[in-house]
């Protein structure tokens, strides 16, 4: 039971910190909607492809918005000495890493997925497919945060970690992005999207299995 109390305690703390004092989640959300709003202008006179490109643009926006949130995911706790206090416990850092990943997903990823139908409509996509697009982004952001957390933990000790996180993490985000953008595009054009969506879910599960021990090992190195 005490592991569960510990886990939910950290999860809840991460949620409230994500939105505290204009915290980490507002910037990715603004970035995400901004990309959706500017996408049609960038396409210019090829505006007729905007509905077809909506899924791709929103998936790219999600991937890049995730990077913004990853920047401080572990770094702030490392700098302020919170991780030292968490490390001296019967509860493993692995559980702490998982709690932080899930909290980032709920605080940042799910709101972005919830905003995505709005983004798709701005680009003139048909409304019918937008709930499925949002679902694919919701699953995809879990994969992004799980895989991205590994890079965030590895780079947490560095001053300007964002650049290194991007270089480390972007290759791993390619797999969910490929399947996810396919699922989103099929959903918007009214085709069957279950297969690519399940592949996105597979990358999310892979990330969730890999990330906790990898993050914990990286964080222990930073405590040295």
């Amino acid at each position, binding site marked *: 039971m005490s592991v569960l109390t510990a886990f939910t*305690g950290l999860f809840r703390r991460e949620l409230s910190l994500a939105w505290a004092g204009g915290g980490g989640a507002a910037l990715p959300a603004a970035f995400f909607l901004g990309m959706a709003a500017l996408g049609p202008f960038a396409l210019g006179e090829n505006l007729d492809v905007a509905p077809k490109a909506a899924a791709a643009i929103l998936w790219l926006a999600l991937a890049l918005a995730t990077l913004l949130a990853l920047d401080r995911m572990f770094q702030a706790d490392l700098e302020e000495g919170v991780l030292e*206090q968490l490390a*001296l416990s*019967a509860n493993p850092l692995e559980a702490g890493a998982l709690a932080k990943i899930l909290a980032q997903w709920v605080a940042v990823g799910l709101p972005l997925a919830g905003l995505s139908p709005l983004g798709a409509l701005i680009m003139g996509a048909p409304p019918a497919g937008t709930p499925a697009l949002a679902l694919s982004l919701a699953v995809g952001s879990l994969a992004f945060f799980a895989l991205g957390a590994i890079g965030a933990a590895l780079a947490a000790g560095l001053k300007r970690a964002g650049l290194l996180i991007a270089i480390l993490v972007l290759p791993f985000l390619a797999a969910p992005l490929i399947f996810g953008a396919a699922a989103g595009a099929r959903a918007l054009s009214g085709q069957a999207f279950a297969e690519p969506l399940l592949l996105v879910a597979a990358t999310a599960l892979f990330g969730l299995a890999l990330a906790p021990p990898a993050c914990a090992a990286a964080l222990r190195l930073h405590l040295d």
Partner: protein
Amino acid sequence: MARIPGYAGPMEHDVFPPHRLIARGLGLRRGGLVLAEELSLSVEAGGALELRGPNGAGKTTLLRTLAGFARPAAGAVRLACGEATLEAEERARRTHWLGHAPGLRREESVGEHLTLLADWWGVTRRRCEPALARVGLAGLAPRLGRMLSTGERRRLGLARLLLDPRPVWLLDEPAGGMDEQGRTLVMDLVEEHRRRGGLAVVATHEPVLLMDADQLTLELVA
């Protein structure tokens, strides 16, 4: 002695089983620099060790090694309870670390911080208020981390020591940046801790901080 009236400390009645912190043949490095070779120490239940020495001599590195954060280049640290040597996980849950970092985020309140640690460490949240009161921070639970003064941050670190009763205290300049009352508080808390069978290793520059503690002076290696 400065004490909060009517409050006897969160767990004065408990007594720890006898622990012993032992380091044998430690080699300490920091960034390739040799800080110490063949360093051995032993602190008994109820005992205290004062670490002294100039800045850069390796006091913090030694403390971080004892805490299990840093791995020694040579030798080993172990924590024994009675005859048994404890596993790394048991050692971690019986060790308190008070370092220079505030321990809470700038945008996090004192109350949220202690609640999180109570949950994470597996102690009841009811201990948070008394621990704050004992270190003179009663009523400061809503205060955000970035609003705390240096002394208040140190006191919050002391409150963490009281939140979860653990036999091993590793304190890195606990009285640094504290006023006279704060120093007295540190002395009192360490004394109470030792009377209950706890042990402490304390790095300090204060002329007098602990009663009849062993001394270990680290020298700068040329």
